[in-house]
């Protein structure tokens, strides 16, 4: 009901142009040369279509009004005209060629990734993105933000309160402005598609193959996108958020990430208390495992077994570490997570939900790799 009233109020003010700014009717122009090119083509083809529609539908409507029996129209008997048929074959061909030329130019430009100054590797997983900065040695996962995940089955009001519902992540991709960036896109399981419409980048992530795309972003800001290829149950829940920052800020961010990575390596060698592991593990579990095994450990049988009372979570540590590291059937491998994250999440799985398994330390994970 609330939505209905809001809708009616929108319809009332629909006439004013200010609404158009708020309500997206059209494609975004975006912030890269590629997205500008695409937008230009889109508007050109759209306007050509509108002009053709006015001519064709105009003739048709005129005929529908004027040539009706109730108006006393008498049917003519013509049914052929080579001249007319030639015209409406040749004219569309000319129009099509005039559209194909600019379209080819944009296409050739957007496929040319040779001028890139840096590369980012993007890997799709069911159902999260992994970003690698190969030169800088940074690697992390980007998951749907908890604030969105918690209210997927919530009320309308709860979803409205969640910040950028379904378009928010726990860790954003950070990119420098005014830099030609090449995206190397692949997948770990099924086909995903990395799409940020403001960049004009949408490319399939195929398992076993690497696709590329590029962008040179003109404007500092935050840009949001989503997976655009059906990839299973949580296809709608793996958004993309990119922070585009100044080159100086980017350098700082890289340095910070590298320091954090070092600290993580250091923390993996020490022995953790069970309480610390459990606290950290709960976060890691909710981000990485809860989509299938559920936050309360009940799972979604028969495909995704329950954690509660699981023979693996209550059994020997080695088997548990093996399945989490290497995966099995639809269970993905989690090698890319750090030793301390993995130790924490397995300790959590072994001791939450009424389970009574042993504690796993980061060093155990490290030696099992």
């Amino acid at each position, binding site marked *: 009901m609330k939505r209905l009233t809001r809708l009616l109020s929108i319809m009332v003010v629909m006439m004013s142009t200010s609404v158009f700014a708020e309500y997206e009717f059209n494609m975004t122009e975006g912030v890269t040369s590629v997205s500008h090119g695409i937008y230009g083509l889109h508007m050109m083809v759209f306007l050509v279509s509108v002009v053709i529609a006015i001519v064709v539908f105009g003739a048709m409507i005129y005929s529908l009004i004027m040539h009706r029996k109730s108006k006393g129209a008498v049917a003519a008997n013509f049914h052929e005209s080579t001249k007319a048929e030639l015209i409406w074959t040749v004219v569309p061909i000319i129009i099509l060629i005039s559209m194909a030329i600019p379209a080819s130019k944009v296409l050739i430009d957007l496929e040319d990734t040779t001028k890139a100054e840096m590369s980012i590797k993007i890997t799709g997983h069911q159902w999260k993105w992994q970003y690698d900065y190969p030169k800088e040695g940074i690697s992390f996962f980007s998951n749907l933000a908890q604030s969105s995940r918690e209210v997927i089955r919530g009320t309308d009001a709860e979803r409205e309160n969640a910040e950028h519902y379904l378009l928010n992540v726990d860790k954003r991709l950070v990119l420098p402005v005014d830099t030609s960036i090449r995206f190397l896109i692949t997948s770990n399981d099924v086909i995903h598609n990395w799409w940020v419409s403001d960049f004009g980048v*949408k490319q399939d992530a195929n398992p076993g193959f690497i696709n590329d795309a590029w962008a040179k972003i003109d404007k500092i800001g935050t840009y949001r996108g989503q997976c655009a290829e059906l990839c299973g149950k949580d296809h709608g829940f793996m958004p993309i958020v990119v922070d585009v920052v100044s080159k100086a800020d980017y350098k700082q961010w890289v340095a910070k990430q590298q320091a954090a990575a070092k600290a993580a390596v250091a923390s993996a060698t020490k022995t953790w208390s069970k309480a610390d592991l459990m606290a950290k593990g709960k976060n890691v579990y909710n981000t990485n495992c809860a989509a299938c095994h559920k936050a309360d450990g009940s799972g979604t049988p028969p495909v995704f077994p329950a954690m509660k009372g699981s023979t693996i979570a209550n059994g020997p540590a080695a088997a548990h570490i093996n399945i989490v590291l290497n995966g099995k059937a639809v269970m993905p491998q989690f090698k890319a997570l750090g030793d301390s994250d993995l130790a924490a999440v397995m300790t959590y799985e072994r001791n939450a939900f009424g389970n009574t398994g042993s504690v796993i330390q980061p060093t155990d994970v490290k030696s099992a790799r």
Partner: protein
Amino acid sequence: MHGLIMVFGAIMPAFVGLGNWLIPMMIGAPDMALPRMNNWSFWILPFAGSILLSTFFMEGGAPAFGWTFYAPLSTTFAPDSTDFFIFAVHLLGFSSIMGAINIIATVLNMRAPEMKLMDMPLFVWTWLITSFLLIGAMPVLAGAVTMMLTDRNFGTAFFDATGGGDPVLFQHIFWFFGHPEVYIMILPAFGVVSHIIPTFARKPLFGYSSMVYATASIAFLSYIVWAHHMFLTGMPVAGELYFMYATMLIAVPTGVKVFNWISTMWRGSMTFEAPMLWAVSFVFLFTIGGFSGLMLGIAPADIQYHDTYFVVAHFHYVLVTGALWSIIAATFYWLPKWTGKMYNEFLAKIHFWWAVIAVNVLFFPQHFLGLAGMPRRIPDYSLQFADFNFISSIGGFAFGASFFLLTYIVIDCIRNGKPATARPWEGAKGLEWTLEPKAQYHSFNTPPSRKLIEAESQNS
């Protein structure tokens, strides 16, 4: 599953049914050529359909990878019920191929001896060409699902890169079937509309032979444009350019058809009974779907449109207000010939306006949703998409409800309709209208004469 049921369970059987009923009457034949094969083709359908639907009740759930069932989501990562899905698709393919063989055999062998190919009504022409598309495309689909089957159960790796395969190979095979498939669903619709518009404009069809040639060229082009569904799979730029140009070329013969229909209306003497209303709105709405199709064909722009609601809007404009519209138009147009009775024109007009408004409320906002960036096939969306989705839902329920009225009109016609004359439409041409008001099981036991064929020909 929605897509599969609509494609294989609604649109295609409806057109095959129309073809089986109308083609013998239109070519002066007593009946279809191969009754046993026809029977088999028909009875496979309910069984294949039941197998497909039964997957909803299986452990692990029904196949959940869309009608395009891209590997590896449909192989390594799919529920067990997928094997039932594969079997059902095989059966549906058998059924379609046998239906197609029967139509080719009927048209080429059972045609009245005095009827030349270029005398044939357009519905027969479009179905003949469609049959060849079916025979060409269906085995390719069968190949794709067979490779899926062996990938899933027998350790092959056609679509698995870790075994030397390629998931994109699946998409090439699928769309080599899939693109002709969409023309399988629209060519007979072109045929239907080419019958209805001349009738109610009381004027011969404009450009009969160019209609035939346009249909044949669309059929040919449909085999060489498949990868325009795959612009984002990482094709080389030369491939993308070729598929973009070939795709844009389809606009030419399709445009010829639209221009011919409008020229048929031009300076006619039109009345707007229900079949004509459906046919005219077909020309309008299908052309809108054609424009969005042209936009999608521009490869760089497709980067932004691909897998969004813009695509959903596009193919519903061509398949619902295209294919389905023509099926409803054909139902009203030939209902008197099937039942010997007239339907209620007043109710039929109400039904038309109800459906045509509802369908646009349903699908037009989806263009905006797609351009604003809403992906397809997502279970929930971020809040800026909520309002257009709400409008679309209202249209969806209204459109769905309109089918109750359609059902009532048809039942009412069968039970209480006033008796129809042999030729209930003033301007109608075609051999079927020379038969008694309610066509018998065997229509032409003696073939029609040359004089009659010429008098009823669309190619006058």
